[in-house]
């Protein structure tokens, strides 16, 4: 039987329906499928009925999964209407007991060509109403009245169709009639779900483009060809090498991964003890050993950690290359900061770092300097890229190695804290749980940081400025005639 997928063209997220169908078809296999039998329900004998527990067992064995997972999947198969319950039709879950279920006929599967239209729903409700007045539930009565109003112009047609279907139904034998009734009811429970039930066919918002409409035109093909020609030319790293890098990274960081290896003294989320966060605060006085060791993994780890960067800056100052990090930070600010100030910032950076005789002159090769100075005539946020990369590489390949061997780093490592594991777990009783206070707001923290920075700037004396002032003063003294 060919099953065409209505709505798939606009709902590719419903790709799972195809997979459920494959599974359901397997279930119906006479040899390897779910065990089925005739069941007596009320006065009729219903063929091909199966128990919930049998279905669950089949899923567990077929897919090699736990019963919890099988239960979850089984519930979905029922919710989407591929299997419907005989005894408790409105409760669309797969009960793991002797409750009876049947397979829905493919005609009523959610993926069929025809959508579940209001007209069909109206006919269905009308038919049930004709069969036995007052059988409709509250929400169905409301729907019925609403549809009556909405399609008043074709209500005669609706009633006529309903009567026809009712009459045709009466000509069937009792068992068939019962089966069809159940199937229809199950179908509408899925497509017009009662209040309080989750609408499983809700997939979220529609996507704009229809991905099933493949627009392969000439431009598209040319772009594809160009891209792949370029990709073929590109030098790639051997997969064994790059994958080796991925494995190495994982292994290196696994002790730092709190979810894998836990953290000391304890994971604040588990024990409600915030010591871990206090010990690892941004610019804590004494960092933890794990944190300091991490700075040795690679240069990026050192730079990214504010405390690491602070320590590195201190080291660079001692080596009289502090301007390198300062320049790098200024370039980052140029790239990611306020774009309206790009021109001014670029000029300032030039004056401070690049101009001949600049106060914090950085040492870059002539070629890079040429490119940079040329680019600064028309500054944009990437104008300092070449110089920034040069300086970054310099710090990474040169200063970083020396930093790791320096007494500054070794002292950091020696002083670093190694917290002891605390196993005190937070009580599970809510009223006995430690009272949790909210952490300080980042807005307040930023204010405090800025105040601290301003204080530091006011206190620290810039040695070069002092020296130049002293120079100037002594020069002036020389120039002035002695009194």
């Amino acid at each position: 039987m060919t099953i065409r997928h209505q709505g798939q063209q606009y709902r590719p997220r419903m790709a799972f329906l195809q997979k459920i169908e494959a599974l359901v078809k397997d279930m119906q296999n006479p040899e390897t499928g779910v065990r089925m039998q005739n069941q007596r329900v009320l006065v009729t004998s219903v063929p091909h009925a199966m128990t919930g527990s049998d279905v669950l067992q089949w899923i567990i064995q077929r897919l090699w999964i736990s019963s919890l997972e099988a239960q979850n999947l089984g519930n979905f198969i029922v919710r989407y209407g591929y299997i419907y319950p005989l005894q408790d039709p409105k409760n669309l879950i797969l009960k793991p007991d002797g409750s009876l279920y049947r397979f829905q006929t493919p005609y009523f599967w959610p993926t069929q060509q025809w959508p579940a239209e209001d007209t069909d729903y109206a006919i269905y409700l009308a038919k049930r109403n004709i069969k036995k007045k007052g059988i409709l539930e509250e929400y169905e009565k409301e729907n019925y009245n609403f549809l009556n109003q909405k399609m008043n112009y074709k209500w005669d047609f609706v009633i006529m169709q309903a009567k026809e279907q009712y009459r045709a139904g009466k000509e069937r034998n009792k068992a068939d009639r019962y089966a069809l009734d159940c199937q229809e009811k199950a179908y509408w429970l899925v497509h017009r779900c009662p209040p309080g039930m989750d609408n499983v066919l809700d997939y979220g918002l529609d996507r704009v483009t229809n991905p099933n409409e493949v627009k392969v035109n000439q431009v598209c093909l040319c772009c594809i060809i160009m891209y792949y020609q370029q990709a073929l030319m590109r030098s790639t790293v051997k997969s064994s090498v790059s994958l080796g890098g991925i494995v190495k990274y994982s292994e290196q960081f696994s002790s730092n991964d709190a979810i894998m290896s836990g953290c000391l003294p304890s994971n604040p989320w588990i024990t409600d003890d915030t010591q871990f966060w206090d010990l690892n605060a941004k610019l804590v006085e004494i960092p933890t050993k794990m944190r300091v060791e991490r700075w040795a993994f690679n240069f990026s780890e050192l730079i990214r950690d504010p405390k690491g960067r602070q320590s590195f800056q201190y080291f660079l100052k001692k080596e009289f290359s502090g301007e390198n990090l300062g320049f790098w930070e200024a370039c980052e600010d140029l790239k990611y900061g306020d774009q309206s100030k790009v021109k001014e910032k670029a000029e300032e950076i030039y004056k401070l770092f690049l101009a001949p005789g600049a106060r914090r002159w950085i040492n870059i090769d002539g070629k890079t300097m040429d490119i940079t100075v040329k680019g600064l005539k028309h500054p944009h946020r990437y104008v300092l890229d070449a110089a920034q990369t040069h300086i970054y590489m310099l710090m990474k390949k040169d200063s970083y190695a020396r930093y790791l061997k320096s007494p500054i780093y070794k002292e950091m490592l020696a002083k670093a804290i190694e917290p002891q594991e605390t196993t005190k777990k937070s009580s599970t009783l809510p009223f006995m749980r430690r009272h949790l206070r909210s952490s300080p707001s980042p807005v307040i923290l930023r204010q405090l940081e800025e105040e601290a920075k301003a204080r530091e700037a006011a206190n620290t004396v810039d040695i070069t400025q002092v020296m130049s002032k002293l120079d100037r003063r002594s020069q002036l003294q020389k120039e002035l005639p002695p009194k």
Partner: protein
Amino acid sequence: MCDQTFLVNVFGSCDKCFKQRALRPVFKKSQQLSYCSTCAEIMATEGLHENETLASLKSEAEKVQKKKAKRHCFVLHQVAERVEALGQFVMKTRRTLKGHGNKVLCMDWCKDKRRIVSSSQVCHEHAVTMPCTWVMACAYAPSGCAIACGGLDNKCSVYPLTFDKNENMAAKKKSVAMHTNYLSACSFTNSDMQILTASGDGTCALWDVESGQLLQSFHGHGADVLCLDLAPSETGNTFVSGGCDKKAMVWDMRSGQCVQAFETHESDINSVRYYPSGDAFASGSDDATCRLYDLRADREVAIYSKESIIFGASSVDFSLSGRLLFAGYNDYTINVWDVLKGSRVSILFGHENRVSTLRVSPDGTAFCSGSWDHTLRVRGMVFCFPVCERREDG
């Protein structure tokens, strides 16, 4: 960590228009030239040359794609054979956040590792009311002092956060991004001043927050762009985006060019996330698989799938070391994958509707999942059984 020398942005004089631009190699009659992106696009739209038909172009495209795919490549679990297998993890929900009156669509962690922002039909935490009904994207600024969000209003707006809870947040709102269709994802770059957005109109864009100016736009997806993630590297300026055209594309923020593209998924890509080293990224898709792509080898290197996992993955994220991949699915579960071995480590239940968003906290101590069941759950690892007996999740 890769130095991103791979990108090779050659700047120079274009062979066609002679302007100083970012160049890319193109082939014209077997001769290799360097064109700027404008001239390259013009060349693509030139129309069929003599001896070319649509069919011949199609076969050439297929030929060149096959040639690239043929290169021998290892997959990750082969290289990771000697790595020790993981034990069983027991993860418990430590916080359940109820407060949204509706489906939670997106969430983000603050860099202080303790705060989150989440969005649904109303932005919570400081309760900003948006004029549209679906707020599909939200992001925390690196300083923690502002948030950005947007959705069906086609815009991305930035709200500065204040300590004064009584202040009217909507009054200080700044409209930054303007797209021609819904906003699906947004992220701040390294500062509070720039935002990267992805939209249903098929483009991504970089904006300056202060002026609302468009700094760079990224065209190339053939359909809605659903997700994006910025590379963690200090030297690279790249980001990856995933779309409804089943492609994941890596972009150079500087030139606006797509530098790499991967098209192995069978359905919409809902979520992309970089591996912590920046050398690879994972994607989650409606085809019920998550895949890992290696940027240096320029290929897909792992598929995370199981026959029993039928529903699409809506959201993925790595643990701090990159060993674990957390993926939230539309069947209300979260599967935890061993990235190196390719096997599933754990399945987590608890949500009562589909998991729409999932992020690991910045210090890797916990992860938070948001769902259509109106709640957010923060989960942490309570216990880890050592490897002794393999359960059926092998």
